[in-house]
């Protein structure tokens, strides 16, 4: 096979220039390959804005851009962002066990979930490698990690969001192996969601409130996740189409 034309973009700043955009269009017309070097996907360094009380508020830090031109890699980066958030949250929950009013049975469940989320994060970190990896700084505002109700309700939010996020990202995966990997993780997130909901409202129908789980677009998920992340979550080359799931609410 003959060598395809190739355009190399070393840093994010160049992506914005009209000249670069023209080159990309020309290249794509020729069936060429676009190579984004680490600088083109890494964060641009905005100064973090410190909010009231000295804590940086959501979205006030560095911009972390997920470039969907990277195809399946971008979907895995999107999952990695969510798993970083979940792993950090449950780590803080477990660290606060000594002073929290969670029951022993609840602590057992939350410890298992912390293990699973840390493992998901470490797996995606290894899968993405240093070039496609990034580190987010979570923020929880005034959340009281000693308070059972606050912890369980936040856990419910994260687990339901995680399920809907993986479900909605599936349509952007082109490699069946990656689709299977996402499937292996999403059902565990759904098991978590049901368990957390059962702790909040035992033996009710809340463990599975709908016959079909939600299927959320990446941009909808980003909107929800941003409230828990200091870094500004950004997409480039975001998909222009999203096929809705059965609930039509993505």
């Amino acid at each position, binding site marked *: 096979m003959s060598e395809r034309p190739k355009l190399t973009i070393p840093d994010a700043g160049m992506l914005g220039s009209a000249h670069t955009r023209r080159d990309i269009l020309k290249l794509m017309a020729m*069936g060429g390959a676009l190579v984004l070097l680490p600088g083109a996907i890494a964060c641009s360094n905005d100064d973090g804005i410190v909010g009231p009380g000295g804590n940086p508020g959501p979205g006030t830090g560095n911009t972390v851009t997920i470039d969907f031109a990277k195809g399946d890699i971008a979907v895995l980066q999107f999952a990695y962002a969510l798993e970083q958030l979940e792993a950090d949250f449950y780590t803080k929950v477990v660290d606060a066990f000594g002073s929290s009013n969670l029951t022993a049975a609840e602590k057992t*469940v939350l410890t*298992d979930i*912390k*293990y*699973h989320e*840390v*493992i*998901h994060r*470490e*797996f995606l970190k*290894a*899968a993405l490698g240093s070039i496609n990896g990034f580190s987010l700084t979570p923020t929880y505002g005034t959340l009281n990690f000693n308070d059972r109700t606050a912890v369980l309700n936040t856990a419910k939010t994260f687990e339901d969001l995680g*399920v809907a996020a*993986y*479900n909605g990202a*599936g*349509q952007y*995966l*082109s490699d*069946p*192996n990656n*689709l*299977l*990997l996402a*499937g*292996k*993780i*999403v*059902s*565990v*997130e*759904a*098991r*978590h*969601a*049901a*368990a957390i909901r*059962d702790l909040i409202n035992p*033996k*009710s*129908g809340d*463990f*599975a409130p*709908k*016959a*079909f*789980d*939600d*299927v959320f677009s990446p941009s909808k998920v980003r909107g929800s996740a941003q409230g828990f992340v200091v870094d500004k979550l950004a997409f480039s080359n975001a998909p222009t189409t999203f*096929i*809705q*799931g*059965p*609930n039509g609410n993505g």
Partner: protein
Amino acid sequence: MNKLPLVESIDPEIISALDARANEISQGASVDSKIAALLALGSIPIALGALSKDVYGQTPSDVLDVLQFALLLEYLEAEFYTRGTAATGLIPAADRVIFETIRDHENTHVTALQTMITAKGATPNAKPNFDFTAKGNLAGFNFGSTQYETFKALAMAFEDTGVRAYKGQAGRLINDKPVLNAALAIHAVEARHASEVRRLRGKKGWITGNSREDLPAFTQGIYDGEENLMQGGVNVSTLPLVSANGGATAATEAFDEPLTKAQVVAIVTPFLA
């Protein structure tokens, strides 16, 4: 070009996908050389067939096969919970809402799958007759008032099977996004059911290793392979921080594994009358 009867009979969605792909090819997109040769020869019907595979990766018949297969599993679950919730004295009052919720979901899944199959121009397979004793493995089970433990054990077996069955079929739906979305949306709900039923039985909501817990030996096929530690070519138990976070045990819990269609058929066959 003149519309051939063959072309008229094909789903408009397929025609538009084929048309878009043919345009790409005419503009120089890479394509299998056999398809290019067929197009060059003007062998329209043969090229159409080949292109259909080229566009979808899987043919529409793969998608239909998945839908009919899923329908069988949902028929099994729907009938199981419908009979269970209708049986006198089987389910204690405090647990009824759990099983009524699951029953309603499974019946909704049956209807949705039938609708999708019909929309693709096919006829949904009829519901078979079921044998919930699993050919005598659960001799005497008939939703009797003293058989709640067996009912819950079967529910756990069916839900854990459902999760793995849908997961194993996702790849065959990768190019039919609406059906993929529906399958993923059902897959996650089956996982919620599984977690709830397992916890109701005093088990963890997730599967540890290949443990069937206290289920009878004939259900072992539902759990075989769940002990897998290799994900994307990486042994997850060797990654940083994993040993301090539950180690290999948690690593098997953190990933649910797929079952092939043949494996699921082997699991379900004893329940077919």
